[in-house]
């Protein structure tokens, strides 16, 4: 699978950086409430593609970074991301057999789990609000799986194919 990893090594950090930028891009409030969770999406994609490379250790690091930037309780996103990426690692062979729609559904479910875990931890925060967790973002994240996985796959294969042609 990893024919020539140094050809596309930049794709993983690059897409993660893009995800972080998207996540913290200033959006109007109504849009913000339905925006997909780009960080979860990209992390899950790479966990599914390269489970040996993007382990839950990396998920932990990504989550802590996100906690630091968002000023949420340190470990909140880390815990949720670790759990979700661990689930993907457990079932990655099965998930890969799915059609893209089934994968999208699975991703929506995982994202919902992520939000619920985050919300559960959020309740420990003394100054947490009381708004219920939103289901819409998980759904939107699932829908965004389709274009994102296609795009990243294309990029990956594009940068893989170049050395073959030469």
């Amino acid at each position, binding site marked *: 699978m990893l024919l020539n990893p140094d050809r596309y090594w930049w794709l993983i950090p690059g897409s993660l950086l893009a995800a972080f930028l998207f996540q913290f891009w200033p*959006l109007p409030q109504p849009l913000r409430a339905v*925006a997909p969770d780009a960080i979860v999406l990209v992390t899950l994609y790479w966990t599914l593609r390269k489970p040996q490379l993007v382990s839950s250790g990396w998920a932990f690091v990504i989550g*802590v970074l996100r906690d*630091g930037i968002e000023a949420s309780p*340190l*470990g909140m996103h*880390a815990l949720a991301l670790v759990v979700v990426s661990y689930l993907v690692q457990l079932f990655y062979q099965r998930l890969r057999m799915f059609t893209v729609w089934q994968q999208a559904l699975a991703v929506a479910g995982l994202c919902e789990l992520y939000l619920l875990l985050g919300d559960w*931890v959020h309740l420990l925060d003394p100054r*947490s609000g009381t708004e219920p967790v939103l289901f819409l973002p998980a759904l939107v994240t699932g829908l965004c799986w389709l274009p994102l996985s296609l795009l990243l796959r294309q990029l990956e294969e594009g940068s893989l194919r170049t050395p073959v042609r030469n």
Partner: protein
Amino acid sequence: MPATLALLLLGIGYYRPELLAGTRSALADSMARPLYWLTSFPSRAGRWADEMFSSHQELIERNHALEHENLILQRKVLQMAALMAENARLKELLNSTEMLEDSALVAELLGVSPDPRRQEMLVHRGRADGAFEGQPVLDAFGLVGSIVELSEHTARVLLITDTTNAVPVQVSRSGVRGIAEGSGRLDELYIRNLVPTTDIKQGDLVVSSGLGGRYPPGYPVGEVVRIEYDGADPFLRVVVRPSAQLDRSQQLLLVFRAEAQLPAPAPTPATPAPAETDSDAAEP
């Protein structure tokens, strides 16, 4: 293993938050600042383009407009000075206490919290600039919130509309006091627990009352837009629209409260405040 680590972090953060304060502040400085700087690129580019491509003619026109506005504001300041002198004299007559003058520091907005449950902003001033936790924050139109978390160069501002925030307020027309609670939406605050006979009307200006000592008194908080009363409830629900432009302001003011002094001798009317930026003369 990483999950245990995450749980451990959460546990430490919950029981001994001070142990993680350094890490959090370091993360905010090293990660959040550059990231928010990047995401604010479009607005900065817009401003840059605006500055670069506006013609000479436009600049002259804007300059004229600003000069006019300046004149008008100057007149208001003069009037203010006279009023303040009068106020001081009256307070002296009443043997009342201090005349306070707040100073302020301009802070650039860095970013807005992406979490829809939280109404927070990140601003580009931190401990190094003298900001402190609990410091009230204004924009040119009214009260914005207060600082809840600090790092060396950034500060997190909890907006008055956050569901966990509440501001002691007063209706400027009648003096009725209340507490304005955040609604979780940028355009609404609620004042609960006012009896139906309270003297409050649609269109009333609500200002901070200064009770509780967290927010300075007398700054506009919002305007009453709606009063809801369904008869079964013993209390009114007053809906207030914040006067601060919470979703538009790029520049915010961090307020330093003056120490309570002994009554000053009646100040000479035309002396401008020594502060770097006087909060009363803030530009819109």
